[in-house]
């Protein structure tokens, strides 16, 4: 009985908090027919927002993957002064509020920021335009790959790499033939998490974007501005697009997790 009771409490809590709200917006988005939802996500503004969100992913995810793997190799395989400090700093983006991230970027790259004058002199605009939004996205999704890969590397040990080296493999061959293949699922998991965050980031991007519809508006910003304008069907439809992406992310996470365990 108590086992059933606990199960009921756990599932009830999850249903009320997670499943029911998400299920309801799917219903609400399609309430007025599939056509209404479809035309809400194919307006010029919506298509532009989708494009911009994809741009964030295409730039931020590869950069953070390369940086993440390099950083993880450094942290797991080398000893150097200041290692503990870097180890702690890597997690910093998780601990900082997205709004603070946005503010911080404005204070460096904005018009009156530390680098603002130099950038303006060279005609480069970072804040209130795409580069700033990309930097914000990179900032908030920085730690995922590092955090997933470091434990995999530590578990793996160095025997195989040393064996390859004694057999005459070059540094590069060891990396591409031994190390990278063994950490690929860890990297994959990190990439999935990075992608989810890059697609879903709201606070940091909202601060640095300046919210110009059709110019610096990502999908998440579009959801908010539509909701504020009481365009509920439009907001729900765009939310459904984002929710579908996150469902894909969940499926990816589950599949990779199974691979990692096996």
């Amino acid at each position, binding site marked *: 009985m108590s086992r059933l009771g*606990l*199960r009921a*409490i*756990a599932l009830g*809590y*999850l249903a009320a*908090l*997670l*499943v029911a*709200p*998400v299920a*309801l*917006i799917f219903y*609400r988005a399609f309430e007025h027919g599939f056509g209404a939802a479809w035309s809400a996500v194919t307006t010029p503004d919506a298509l532009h927002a989708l494009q911009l969100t994809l741009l964030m992913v295409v730039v931020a995810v590869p950069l953070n993957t390369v940086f993440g793997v390099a950083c993880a190799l450094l942290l797991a395989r080398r000893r150097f002064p200041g290692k503990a400090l870097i180890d*702690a700093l890597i*997690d*910093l*983006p*998780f*601990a*900082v*509020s*997205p*709004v*603070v*991230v*946005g*503010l*911080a*970027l*404005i*204070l*460096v790259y904005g018009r009156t*920021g*530390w680098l603002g004058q130099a950038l303006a002199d060279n005609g480069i605009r970072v804040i209130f335009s795409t580069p700033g939004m990309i930097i914000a996205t990179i900032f908030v999704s*920085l730690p995922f790959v590092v955090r997933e890969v470091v434990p995999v590397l530590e578990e793996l040990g160095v025997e195989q790499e040393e064996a390859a080296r004694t057999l005459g493999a070059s540094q590069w061959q060891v990396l591409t033939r031994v190390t990278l293949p063994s950490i690929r699922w860890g990297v994959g998991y990190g990439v999935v*998490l990075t992608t*989810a965050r890059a*697609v*879903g*980031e*709201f*606070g940091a991007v*909202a*601060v640095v974007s300046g919210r110009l519809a059709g110019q610096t508006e990502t999908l*998440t910003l579009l*959801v*908010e501005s539509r*909701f504020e304008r009481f365009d509920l069907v439009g*907001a*729900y439809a765009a*939310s459904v697009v*984002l*929710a579908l992406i*996150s*469902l894909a*992310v*969940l499926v990816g*996470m*589950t599949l990779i997790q199974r691979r990692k365990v096996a």
Partner: protein
Amino acid sequence: MIVLLPLAAVVARSTDGGLDGFWRAVSSREAVAALRLTLIVSVAVVAINAVMGTLIAWVLVRDEFPGKRVVSAVIDLPFALPTIVAGVTLLALYGPKSPLGVNIAFTRVGVALALLFVTLPFVVRAVQPVLLALDREMEEAASSLGASPLTTFRRIVLPNLRPAIVAGASLAFARALGEFGSVVLISGNVPFKTEVAAVFIYAQIGNDNVTGAAAVSVVLLALSLLLLASVSRLGKRRHDE
């Protein structure tokens, strides 16, 4: 360039008007109200999710039922779902047009609900692996010596789980302190009532009061750094044992 320099700029900007200016900005009535609300709601939310998270982890590890794999995947939904969508979904079900006839929009309960949503996975994911690795012989010994299930849980299982619960709760707390996207629509940003620290900072940036925004940011930063440091200390201690 991307992480350290900008954060240094925040700290520098917060003391633009000297320490006096910093103190004035942080101790303004609206800032204090926002910080206090953030702390109180975060503590409450983390306490609820520490209990519920442990319970859910227990059910996922020790119980068997059809669809368990799906439920386990659903736990990560708050990590995968954009925070603004989380806010929209919660408002759709519990907001002004709620089919249930409740309305949590622009209330502190609504703020708490949003934070419960986004912080749910932390404790579950921290406790689950520890519970899986836990030797059941101790529990069997306890119950064969006549301990009730509740006593066994309280005296045997809970002490073993405590470090994981604390670690998960600290991460959840750090997340709750800075949360913005899921809260911004639900709270309605009523100063002194539902305005949390992150929303306050956002409003100050909009009002061009950058120094005030930076000052409150520094308070948030200091709090989360403290949490981060204590979590890594905990992790190291467990590692050493």
